[in-house]
């Protein structure tokens, strides 16, 4: 499955258990070369576990897994040489400065000193940390640390970059910076695998996403397609009063719409909500809004609206 087959990662029936707990319960997916693929899912869904199996830091319990044509059980070093990892937990080396972190990381890959220095300078500019090159890691803000982790993950010029919640704790500017950088990597043909809890981010940067829950993949597809298939084009949201609540079912029965309730709020999805919207305002319902359907609607519909546990 080397260059040419077009598949960067493929999994069949991939399973991971920790003792009695099944973290990943048999998943299938194929990640294409050059795409940005997202794993979405609530806390504990198994996203990080899946990624760790891909980047060869967690042996799988069962199933098949191929990363750039190689089996993580057999050729971990060969795979790791060609992937970059931005872990969920910040694990920069606090004994060293920003620049030293990048150089030392490059050394683990056997990159030569001079080459490493050139790449480090370039990548610090890439994540806008050039000014901090000489700063100790502990002196960085948490958002700067995340950006440095991204630079570090690129030090070996990976063909596949794995990012576990890369934008946690970033301000909007920094988040847009990261999105932009991920798009630039696309031009270089770098495959990217990301997890995120921000659905607008997933819709923005991912070519395709898989929605996971309880160790399984529920659906896989392009964000737009998933929204259309699972929700429709638009959503009407309202917080009905008692009497409105009893009347609403009858009022919308004639329309091809689906109603979901989360706490006090009703979400009514439809492909074209305008006629229904007109009717509802005519009938005097208040506090109704119409908006385009989003990936968040898909996520909540598939994984449940209420917090589990």
């Amino acid at each position, binding site marked *: 499955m080397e260059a040419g087959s077009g598949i960067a990662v493929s999994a069949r029936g991939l399973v991971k258990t920790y003792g009695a707990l099944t973290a990943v319960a048999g998943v299938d997916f194929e990640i294409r070369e050059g795409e940005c693929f997202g794993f979405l899912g609530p806390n504990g869904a198994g996203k990080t576990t899946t990624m760790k199996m891909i980047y060869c*830091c967690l042996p799988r319990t069962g199933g098949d897994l191929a990363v750039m044509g190689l089996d993580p059980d057999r050729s*971990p070093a060969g795979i790791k040489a060609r992937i970059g990892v931005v872990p969920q937990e910040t*694990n920069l*080396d606090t*004994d*060293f400065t920003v620049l*030293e972190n990048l150089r030392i990381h490059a050394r683990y890959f056997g990159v030569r000193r001079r080459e490493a220095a050139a790449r480090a300078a370039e990548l610090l500019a890439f994540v806008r940390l050039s000014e901090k090159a000489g700063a100790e890691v502990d002196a960085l803000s948490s958002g700067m640390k995340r950006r440095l982790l991204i630079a570090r993950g690129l030090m070996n010029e990976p063909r596949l970059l794995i990012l576990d919640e890369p934008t946690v704790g970033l301000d909007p500017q920094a988040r847009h910076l990261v999105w932009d950088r991920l798009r630039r990597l696309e031009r270089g043909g770098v495959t990217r695998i990301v997890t995120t809890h921000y659905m607008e981010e997933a819709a923005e940067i991912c070519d395709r996403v898989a929605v996971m829950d309880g160790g399984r993949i529920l659906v896989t597809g392009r964000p737009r397609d998933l929204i259309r298939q699972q929700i429709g084009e638009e959503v009407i949201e309202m917080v009905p009063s008692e009497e409105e609540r009893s009347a609403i079912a009858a009022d919308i029965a004639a329309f091809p719409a689906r109603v979901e309730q989360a706490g006090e709020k009703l979400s009514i999805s439809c492909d074209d909500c305008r006629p229904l919207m007109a009717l509802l305002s005519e009938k005097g319902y208040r506090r109704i809004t119409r908006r385009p359907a989003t990936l968040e609607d898909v996520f909540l519909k598939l994984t449940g609206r209420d917090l589990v546990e």
Partner: protein
Amino acid sequence: MSRVSGKLWRVWRRNFDSFRKYLHVNVLGNLGEPFLYLVAMGYGLGSFLGDVDGVSYVRFLAPGIVVSSAMFAAAYECTYMSFLKMVHLKTYDAIIVTPVGIEDVVAGDIAWGATKSLMSGTAMFAVAAALGLVESWWALLVPLLALLVGFHFASLSMLVTSVSPNFDSFSYFFELFVTPLFFFSGIFFPLDPFPAWIRIASRLSPITHAVDLSRALMLGRPAPTPLASVAVLAVTAAVLFRWSIARMRRRLIR
């Protein structure tokens, strides 16, 4: 399934770079204590004692202090420091996403611990030489001995680290194991006056053998069992090295 490779030196280099960067903090901590023991006990206590084992007390003591400084350097490095990197700083996690595998990370830390022993042991040896406590050219082999002691003790300490749930468990290791070794390996006094079981137990400890060798080299007299002593140190070190890496792998890769 232990695959140690030459990449362990990349981990060693990381530790060396950190050491060099914080050299000013490191040096005193590593050498101050053994130096104090040598001066306070050797000259202070020694002035009340006659010859021990045929030489002045400070001459008797110095070779043992060299070994103990090597022992403590590796023990500290591969318990507290390795645990810190493994659990708290997540340094190990950061390295194993690169082609450097967990075996190389652990082996690199052990190699570094042994290097610290080499440095500490050699520094103490130099102090002893400067004080005129060395009597033989054979003593030039003492740094090599310190390295071997370091390899043994770094591996042993890493094994302890691989089963330690937290920092507190190391105080058990130090208080119940390292400190008794320190006192009952013939560093401070010959074990002749003690009951047979203590003498036999002590002969089972590789540190006793290291002290024998060190004393023989520095005082220029034959060791009781030179080849056997080297063999005990080297073989136990090799076994502990393999074992600690296997345990560590089981702890970290599940």
